[in-house]
C-alpha cells in the first residue's frame, strides 16, 4: 500500500504529460467528430524531434516548441488528405500514421535516441512543477481559442457543418486547422514524454490513440462536460485518473506488464458501453412513466413541442 502511494506522484506526472495528448484527441474525436489515427505517429514525431534537437545542442525549450510544430505539420497533411483529397477520415489518419513511421526513423536516424546526461527542460527544475504549468497554460490557451470566432467555427464544423458553411466558414479549412492543432498538442506531449524518460523510441506512439480516448471518456464520465472550460479540465483529470488506474492495475499479481494495452482497451470498452446502456435504460423508464401518466390522465397533452 505504501509503495502504491509512493508511485502516485509519478502517475500524476505521467498523466499530466499525456493530458496534452488527450487534449489533442479531444479536439478531433469530440469537437470535430473525426477519429484521427495520425496521433500514433505524431506522438513519436514530437518525441523524435525533441530528442534529436536536444542531442544536437538546441535549447530544450526550442526543441519542445519544434516538436509542437512538427505535429502541426503532420496533422495538416492528414487534414489535406481528408478534405482536398476526399479520402475517408479514418483512412487518411492510417495513411499518415504509416508514413510517419518512416519519417520518424529519418528524423531520429535510428529506432532509439536517448539524451542521458544532457539537459532537458526537466533537468534544472522539478518535473511535476514544470508539467503542471505547461498543462494549465495549454489548457487555458485552448479554452480561449475555442471561444474566438475561429474557434467557434471550428466547434460548429463538428456540430453542424451545413449550418456553419451557410454562414460562410470554409469547413475544409477549419478541419485542417483542427486536425493540425490536435496533432501539435500530441507531438508536444510526445516531446515532453521523451524528455521525462530521457529517450525517444520509434514505438513510443503505439496505442496512444486508445489512451487518449480512454482519458477523454473517463474524464467525461466522472467530471461531466458541460462547457468548454469544464470539458477540457475533465480531459486533463481523465488522463490522470487513467494513469492511476493503470498504476493500480500493475499491482494486481496475476497481471503482467505486457497486459497494459489489453487493460486500456477494456477500460475504453467499459467507458463507451456503460453510458450507452445507462442512457437507454433511463429512456425506457421515462417512456414507461410518461405513457402511464398519459393513460391515467387522458386530457393531458403528450410531449409538448
Amino acid at each position, binding site marked *: 500500500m505504501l509503495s502504491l502511494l509512493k508511485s502516485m506522484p509519478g502517475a500524476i506526472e505521467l498523466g499530466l504529460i499525456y493530458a496534452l495528448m488527450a487534449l489533442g484527441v479531444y479536439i478531433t474525436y469530440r469537437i470535430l467528430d473525426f477519429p484521427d489515427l495520425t496521433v500514433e505517429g505524431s506522438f513519436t514525431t514530437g518525441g523524435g524531434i525533441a530528442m534529436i534537437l536536444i542531442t544536437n545542442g538546441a535549447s530544450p525549450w526550442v526543441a519542445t516548441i519544434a516538436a509542437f510544430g512538427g505535429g502541426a505539420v503532420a496533422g495538416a497533411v492528414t487534414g489535406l488528405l481528408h478534405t482536398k483529397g476526399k479520402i475517408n477520415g479514418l483512412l487518411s489518419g492510417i495513411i499518415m500514421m504509416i508514413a510517419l513511421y518512416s519519417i520518424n526513423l529519418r528524423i531520429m536516424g535510428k529506432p532509439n535516441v536517448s539524451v542521458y546526461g544532457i539537459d532537458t527542460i526537466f533537468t534544472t527544475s522539478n518535473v511535476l512543477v514544470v508539467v503542471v504549468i505547461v498543462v494549465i497554460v495549454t489548457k487555458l490557451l485552448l479554452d480561449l*481559442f475555442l*471561444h*474566438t*470566432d*475561429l*474557434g*467557434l*467555427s471550428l*466547434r*460548429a464544423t463538428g*456540430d*453542424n457543418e*451545413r*449550418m*456553419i*458553411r*451557410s*454562414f*460562410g*466558414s*470554409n*469547413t475544409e479549412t477549419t478541419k485542417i486547422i483542427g486536425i493540425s492543432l490536435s496533432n501539435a498538442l500530441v507531438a508536444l506531449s510526445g516531446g515532453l514524454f521523451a524528455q521525462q524518460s530521457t529517450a525517444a523510441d520509434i514505438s513510443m506512439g503505439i496505442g496512444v490513440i486508445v489512451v487518449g480516448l480512454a482519458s477523454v471518456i473517463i474524464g467525461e464520465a466522472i467530471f461531466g462536460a458541460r462547457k468548454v472550460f469544464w470539458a477540457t479540465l475533465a480531459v486533463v483529470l481523465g488522463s490522470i485518473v487513467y494513469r492511476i488506474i493503470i498504476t493500480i492495475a500493475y499491482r494486481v499479481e496475476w497481471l503482467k506488464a505486457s497486459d497494459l494495452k489489453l487493460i486500456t482497451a477494456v477500460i475504453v470498452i467499459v467507458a463507451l458501453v456503460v453510458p450507452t446502456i445507462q442512457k437507454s435504460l433511463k429512456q425506457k423508464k421515462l417512456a414507461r412513466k410518461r405513457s402511464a401518466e398519459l393513460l391515467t390522465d387522458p386530457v393531458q397533452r403528450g410531449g*409538448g*413541442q
Partner: protein
Amino acid sequence: MLNISKVSKLFNPGTVDEKTALIGINLHLKPGDFVTVIGSNGAGKSTLMNIISGVMRPDAGNVEIAGDKITLLPEYKRSKWIGRVFQDPMAGTAPRMTIEENLAMAYKRGKPRTLLLGVTPAKRAFFKEQLSRLGIGLENRLGAKVGLLSGGERQALSLLMATYTKPQILLLDEHTAALDPARAELITALTDSLVHEMKLTTLMVTHNMEQAIRLGNRLIMMDKGRIILDVNEQRKKELTVAQLLNEFEQISGKKLADDRIVLG
C-alpha cells in the same frame, strides 16, 4: 438585386434517369421584393434555392446578386450576400453550442473569422436586444445550449440568425413545414415582421397556398423546372386558393400534386 438568367440544371444527364430540374429559368428580384414560390413535387423549387445558395452549380445560365456574378462561387463564399433558413429546424443551428455562440457565428456571416473573442459583453447586449424581438423569452437564456430548445424555438433562432445581419438576399426553404400549426404560424408572423422591418429581398418556398398568397408582394408558381405563373402585387391581393389551383390546372393541364400541400 437578384438576377437569374437562363439557368438550367439536369440530374444524371445522358442516363435513363435523366431529369430536368430547371430549364431556362429567368427571375429578377427588385430590392425589397418578397417573392413566394409554390409548385408541385419535383417542380424545381429546391433546386432553384440550391443554385442560388451555391450548394449546386447550374449547367447553364448565370446568377447575379447586387451586380456581382456569383454563378461559380462556392457556397461558403456566397454567404456574404445570402441568409438562409432550412426546412429542418435542426439544420440552422449548432445544438451543442449556446444561443449566444450561435448568434456570434451568424454575426460573422461572410466575414473573416479571426482570433478575437466571439462573444464580448458589447455583443452580448446586442444579441439580447435582437433576441427580444422574437418575443419568446430567448433573451434570458443566452447561455443555454441550443439543443435544449424546442423545434419552434430553434427555427425562430435560425430565422433571427439568418436575418439580423441584413443579408442582400434571404432564402427561406419551406422553413415552417416541419412545425406544428401553432408554431408554424408564429414563425410565419415573425418572418413577415422581420422581412418588412429590415426590407429584405426574400425568396420563400412554401407548401402552404394560403401563406403564399398572404405573404409577400409577388408569387411565382413552378412546374417541371419552369416558372409557369408570375403573379404581381396587385393581382396577388385579390387572389384566392381556388383561383390559384384552377390557374395551375389550366396552364399545366393537370391537378396540382403535392404530398404535403396545405390549402390554408
